[in-house]
């Protein structure tokens, strides 16, 4: 598991980027107190989803406005065509951790 930080380090509606100890950067979002982790790099083009706008349970890529569902990683429409990986987030003893998924889950 990768340590992200204290819950209060991730403000409501914001995200932090995890780059240490992971193969590809991961963005961890706080949506109304619930944490979601997805691959940080938009599958359409090189842009950090941690910089994206969060609305409901989706994040908008800051560059081309592709939206991804934070729960499933699925893009809501073009320009992104492929999902981002999602990762499990656990809070243990007052710290937020990410359990990195091994491979891209097959899209439904």
């Amino acid at each position, binding site marked *: 598991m990768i340590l992200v930080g204290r819950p209060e380090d991730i403000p409501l509606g914001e995200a932090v980027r995890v780059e240490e100890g992971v193969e590809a950067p991961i963005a961890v979002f706080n949506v109304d107190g619930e944490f979601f982790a997805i691959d940080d790099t938009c599958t359409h083009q090189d*842009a*950090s989803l941690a910089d994206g*706008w969060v609305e409901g349970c989706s994040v*908008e890529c*800051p560059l*081309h*406005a592709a939206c991804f569902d934070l729960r499933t990683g699925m893009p809501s429409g*073009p*320009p992104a*065509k492929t999902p981002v990986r999602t990762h499990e987030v656990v809070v243990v003893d007052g710290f937020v951790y990410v359990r990195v998924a091994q491979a891209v889950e097959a899209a439904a």
Partner: protein
Amino acid sequence: MRTVAVIGGSLAGISAARALREHGFDGRVVVVGAEDRLPYDRPPLSKEFLADKIGIDDLALTTDADAELDLDWRLGETAVRLDPRGRSVVLASGQEVAADGVVLATGARARPWPGDDLPGVHTLRTVDDAIALRDGLRSGGRLVVIGAGFIGAEVASTARDLGVEVTVVEAERLPLAGVLGPELAAVCTSLHAEGGVRLIAGTPVAGLVGTDRVREVRLADGRAVPADVVVVGIGALPNVEWLAGSGVDHDPRGVWTDAAGATNLPNVVAAGDCTFSHCAYAGVELRQEHWTNALQQASAAAATLLGRDAAPARPAPPYFWSDQYGVRMQFAGHRTADDEVEIIEGDPDSRRFVAGYRRDGRLVAVFAMNQPKLFAKWRRQLAAPAAAPLA
């Protein structure tokens, strides 16, 4: 409708083809592309691709899933004539594609420097252009970029990172002032000097000098700037000449369409860089040579062709971005000369800020540097000038 011919194999073309399928069109879709390549993304051509940080495969706009679209590709083919009723398209090879509906998505081409081609002088529009320029820059030397627009600035920035000595020459005294207004244009323009690029503004180019290849750029004031490579970035021309005699309304600004891509012919729609379209957000006709427009307008045009309602609930503001000198610039909305500019977040000197343009108190456009999230926030606050009550 049994066959739709999509004329253009870039972002607008593939987006229109996808949208046709999403709307349930199960007839034949023929996609004609002038370049002998599947659709690819052009924005990186002046940046990551030019810098050799990414390759051709990284540019692909299609994925394996697109095989399900069952498209009939005609790549390396140029359309040369549209039948006056829009019922068939003749290709340069002599082939004729009969169609019940036509999507015009032929894009634009780089405006060339007038006169004969001189080796060492480049424009940048296609991946082949980018490869040729990359090879030209590999030997280092001195690059002169003509035109300090977004493409010119991006090329200058990338070339500087590659260790090339760069001069940008611009006819206007303040580059980008027409797009961003003088205040913010000045902020953008200062990036050249900070990035180690010399900018000569307010001086038109008189001519390119050289015998076997370009040697210098001669300016209108008599100065000469030595050059091993020249990039001409003076805008783009819509590819519409082939429509002469077709009956489709167009002029040198592009194919005339409404906000949903409809032309004056019921079975012909158009999208992307080749169009001169009514912008529902701005309430005026515009040519929007922007990535997002090629995507969104193509989707609307496909719906229009199939007789579906294509209008979004809220008109989308025009949007573009540019990455140069380590700064991400983003602009959304529609600006006119009388709009008032104010900094609404951050500080221009820090290169991290958001600025707003107001018209009669309404926020009609936003511009940001290195503030993607705040830009996204303010973009949502935009008020379409077209919706404003008449004074």
